[in-house]
């Protein structure tokens, strides 16, 4: 056996250790989203508070906004309401996508929109209301199209209706600063250049 071959087990082990070491400091729970840079899926869903009002993709596009998947049953969603209300005051448009739990008729549970509206209204009054309006994802199919695995999750959608970020977990000042602000700026820059281009085009056209 050649002598260098005797060192291969050691080399393999050290190589693996490097990955194990970096692995210690990264979160095994992070999942990358399949939705990134894709247009918001098509949908046609009712408003949570005024069910006769229906929402779809086209009605939402035009300006960047946050699509926040949430539910009154989810404690983390409740915890992020106050901070998100501040964001609203700063001029961030937040649209809620309401994620209802499946009802279990065996335990006498029946879906009651009225009850749900009361619960939502009460929670938003108590903890803060960041939402411009809420879309009710009746059977969570929109959530499935968005690759949502639970609540809270938040999507950043740009003016063209493209998903620019998919964040799993709560929104807090740290996450906002580190993740969302840079992404927001990027979107802003792009739309600015778009606007400029449009102006240039207009000028060109008028000539």
């Amino acid at each position: 056996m050649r002598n260098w071959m005797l060192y291969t087990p050691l080399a393999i082990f050290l190589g693996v250790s490097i990955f194990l070491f970096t692995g210690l400091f990264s979160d095994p729970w992070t999942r990358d989203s399949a939705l990134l840079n894709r247009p918001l899926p098509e949908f046609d869903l009712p408003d949570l508070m005024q069910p006769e009002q229906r929402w779809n993709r086209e009605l939402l596009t035009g300006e960047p906004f946050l699509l926040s998947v949430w539910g009154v049953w989810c404690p983390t969603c409740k915890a992020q309401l106050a901070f998100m209300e501040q964001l609203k005051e700063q001029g961030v448009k937040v649209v809620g996508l309401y994620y209802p739990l499946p009802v279990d008729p065996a335990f006498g549970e029946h879906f009651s929109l009225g009850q749900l509206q009361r619960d939502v209204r009460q929670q938003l009054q108590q903890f803060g209301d960041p939402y411009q309006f809420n879309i009710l994802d009746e059977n969570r199919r929109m959530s499935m199209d968005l690759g949502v695995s639970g609540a809270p999750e938040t999507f950043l959608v740009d003016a063209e209706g493209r998903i620019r970020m998919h964040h799993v977990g709560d929104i807090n000042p740290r996450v906002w600063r580190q993740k969302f602000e840079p992404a927001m700026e990027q979107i802003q820059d792009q739309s600015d250049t778009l606007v400029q281009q449009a102006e240039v085009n207009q000028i060109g056209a008028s000539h």
Partner: protein
Amino acid sequence: MRSLCLLLLLSLSTVWAAGQEILPFDDDGQRKLYQELTQQLRCPQCQNQNIAESNAVVSIDMREKTYELVQQGHSKQEIIDYMIDRYGYFVHYSPPLNALTIMLWLLPVFALLMMLLFMLRRKKQQQQLISSNAPLEQELNAIIDAYRSKK
């Protein structure tokens, strides 16, 4: 009233009422496909669980969707692609093929061949050694054979 109910129940029980399959399938092939898929799709929210075992809301929804797609006659790959399209490669217990994941197959095959080759080469070297004193070797083998046949 209560005894009447019991009586009714007893009379019913002679004509066995059949329990229904919760998700009825037209044929065994579809049922098998559904069972296979729910075992190979991973719950995106849980620790390491497939959607057949997990009772997270998202797993329930995914099972429902899988059932719907199976019923509509979609193929296994189509349904897997549908899920990957939404939840990423993470959702399927079989990894996508790329420069790194190809190692999953290449490395074991390579290691296997290397180990077999190692033995062959070693034998070749020894063969050369042995041939240098072949007569002695033959004599020894004869003795061994004689001993074995006696036993």
